[in-house]
């Protein structure tokens, strides 16, 4: 399992802070707690007397940073804080009054103590409206105390997959990893082909179907239905992983899918993301029927949800009083908006830049920051605050409560203009990483930042779920809204491949990075490395020695 993210290792106290704690324990902290004032947006300030202005004992100044001594409550400004320590022996630790942070006068630096942060946060929680029920403290929240472990391991282990017994096609590129095969375009179906390529190589799905978890024979016996999309997916996997390299036509799958989504059944170009959602939906429906469970929450055990389902948290905060109401919603992907205010260097080459325009490259982390940033809802969107008992201006913030095994990020590239009553495509380039750390976007991180980045465990942090991801597929779009083309890039065993309908080729990672990404597929690091250990199934041929080398490829004896 991944080690806890190094961003949040607690700093060690300095010698002076340690000494202070030995001598005075929590006395100073506790008496300080009574002097803390909490503003509606959660800031904690030290404010002993509401009306009197704090002034430095030495220069009577009230500007700049003021510190209050933890032992004698004397106030000094940053220029004179050293004088206080010199005149009073042992008075080495003070608190920054504006920020409620510990300061060591001798080290001349901010220091940190989890016990101090606990005192501050307790006051923040107590004073903010809603008490401990809101503001990130999951007292009776669903899932925190009886945290069900998504059994990510069971049933998804490739080692249990049956051996594929097949003749090797000697003309094929046998050096290509298993499962790499082109898909024929059946009439503007590149949207379908691109998504299928990505799904075929999503480790949990791949392992599930290649382990024969959905047995077509038993399925037909049970349900008696003629059309089962899962059986067709199973057939697709068998065909794609058979070792045959000639392009495959997923006609049966297309037909089945049309049966389920009749409104999308046409030869028109469709949206790949819409198709993706619809496929997961169908898998869920079918499996729910078979498993006899109707759980629409995030703990559904169908393969689609086990692989892709995560939990989003939405906090709506009243700007006037600080009361926060929290809701949770399951999701199978995250749709990100592009920051269209960022102009690329090529855009500004010939134009003068206005003072407040931003230039640079749009990055995925920028989009994720936008997604999890606090958004001020307009004054036409006032919400009813339970505490104030009336409509108030609010701010909304999203964060990820639980990450999925496979993270699908969808980049919204369609812009709807209500004025012109038309939609257009946003071609802005988006830079994305191959390794992605989702820790800053977790609810625990977002909540921690809201309370001043204190050393405090706000939520039950899922220690058995990894926040580090590796990319394994990119669906790129080129062209215009109505007449574009989708291709999929796959990353298998650290080599990138381009799947353009029937044409599969090796490509350099530079090509992938430069592509116009539309959907990005990341998988949790441990699953990625496991899946890439050995993507070549041992195939037993009745007529040939399995260890003889094939033309054009040297055998890797592992």
């Amino acid at each position, binding site marked *: 399992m991944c080690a806890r993210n190094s961003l949040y290792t607690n700093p060690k106290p300095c010698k002076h802070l340690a000494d202070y704690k030995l001598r005075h324990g929590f006395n100073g902290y506790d008496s300080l707690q009574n002097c803390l004032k909490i503003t509606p947006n959660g800031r904690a300030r030290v404010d002993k007397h509401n009306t009197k202005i704090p002034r430095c004992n*030495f220069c009577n100044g*009230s500007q700049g940073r003021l510190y209050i001594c933890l032992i004698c409550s004397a106030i000094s400004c940053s220029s004179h804080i050293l004088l206080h320590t010199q005149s*009073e022996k042992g008075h080495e630790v003070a608190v920054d009054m504006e920020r409620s942070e510990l300061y060591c006068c001798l080290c001349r*630096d901010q220091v940190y103590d989890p016990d101090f942060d606990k005192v501050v946060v307790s006051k923040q929680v107590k004073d903010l409206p809603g008490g401990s029920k809101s503001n990130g403290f999951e007292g009776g929240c669903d899932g925190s105390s009886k945290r069900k472990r998504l059994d990510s391991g069971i049933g998804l282990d490739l080692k249990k997959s049956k051996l594929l017994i097949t003749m090797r096609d000697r003309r094929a590129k046998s050096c290509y990893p298993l499962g790499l095969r082109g898909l024929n375009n059946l009439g503007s179906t590149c949207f379908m082909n691109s998504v299928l390529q990505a799904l075929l190589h999503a480790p949990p799905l791949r392992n599930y179907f290649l382990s024969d978890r959905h047995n077509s024979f038993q399925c037909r016996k049970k349900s008696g239905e003629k059309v089962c999309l899962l059986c067709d997916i199973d057939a697709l996997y068998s065909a794609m992983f058979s070792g045959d390299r000639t392009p495959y036509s997923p006609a049966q799958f297309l037909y089945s899918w049309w049966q389920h989504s009749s409104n999308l059944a046409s030869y028109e170009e469709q949206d790949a993301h819409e198709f993706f959602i619809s496929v997961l939906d169908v898998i869920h429906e079918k499996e729910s029927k078979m498993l006899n469970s109707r759980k629409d929450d995030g703990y559904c055990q169908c393969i689609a949800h086990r692989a892709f389902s995560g939990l989003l948290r939405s906090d709506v905060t009243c700007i006037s009083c600080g009361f926060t109401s929290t809701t949770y919603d399951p999701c199978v992907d995250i749709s990100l908006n592009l920051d269209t205010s960022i102009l690329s260097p090529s855009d500004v080459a010939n134009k003068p830049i206005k003072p407040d325009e*931003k230039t640079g490259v749009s990055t995925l982390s920028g989009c994720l920051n936008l997604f999890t940033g606090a958004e001020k809802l307009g004054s036409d969107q006032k919400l009813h605050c339970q505490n104030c008992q009336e409509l108030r201006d609010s701010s909304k913030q999203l964060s990820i409560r639980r990450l999925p095994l496979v993270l699908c990020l969808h980049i919204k590239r369609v812009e709807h203009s209500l004025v012109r009553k038309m939609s257009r495509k946003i071609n802005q380039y988006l830079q994305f990483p191959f390794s992605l750390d989702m820790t800053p976007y977790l609810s625990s991180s977002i909540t921690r930042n809201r309370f001043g980045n204190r050393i405090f465990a706000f939520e039950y942090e899922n220690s058995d779920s990894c926040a580090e991801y590796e990319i394994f597929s990119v669906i790129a779009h080129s062209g215009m809204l109505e007449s574009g083309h989708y291709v999929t890039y796959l990353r298998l065993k650290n080599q990138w491949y381009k799947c353009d309908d029937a044409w599969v080729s090796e490509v350099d990672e530079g090509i992938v990075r430069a592509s116009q990404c539309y959907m990005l597929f990341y998988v949790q690091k441990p699953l990625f490395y496991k899946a890439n250990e050995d993507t070549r199934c041992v195939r037993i041929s009745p007529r040939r020695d399995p260890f003889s080398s094939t033309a054009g490829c040297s055998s890797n004896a592992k």
Partner: protein
Amino acid sequence: MKHSVNRPPTPDAAEDQGKEPTLQEIINIKLIESGEKERLMELLRERLIDCGWKDEMKAICRAYIKKKGRNNVTVDDLVHLITPKGRASVPDNVKADLLQRIRTFLMSAAL
């Protein structure tokens, strides 16, 4: 507390209080007492985040820490580093807005 025995003589604050408080000080006191200063500080914080000023300062700090090493930097160092840069890079529209609000407040406080 026994510490009062060892306390040095009261510093020269008494001398300073002989002087008349400056206009700036009077305004500051009025702002704090009415709670307006806190509101303005909140507003300023918001504006500086929106225009990317906070991110800029963060980036400067990060670069400095990277150069010097995480354990060789104190809060004081960072404050001394970014104070001049920070003051200089506050956008004009933010300055103008805050100034206008202070003016409005002063007129309503009928100084």
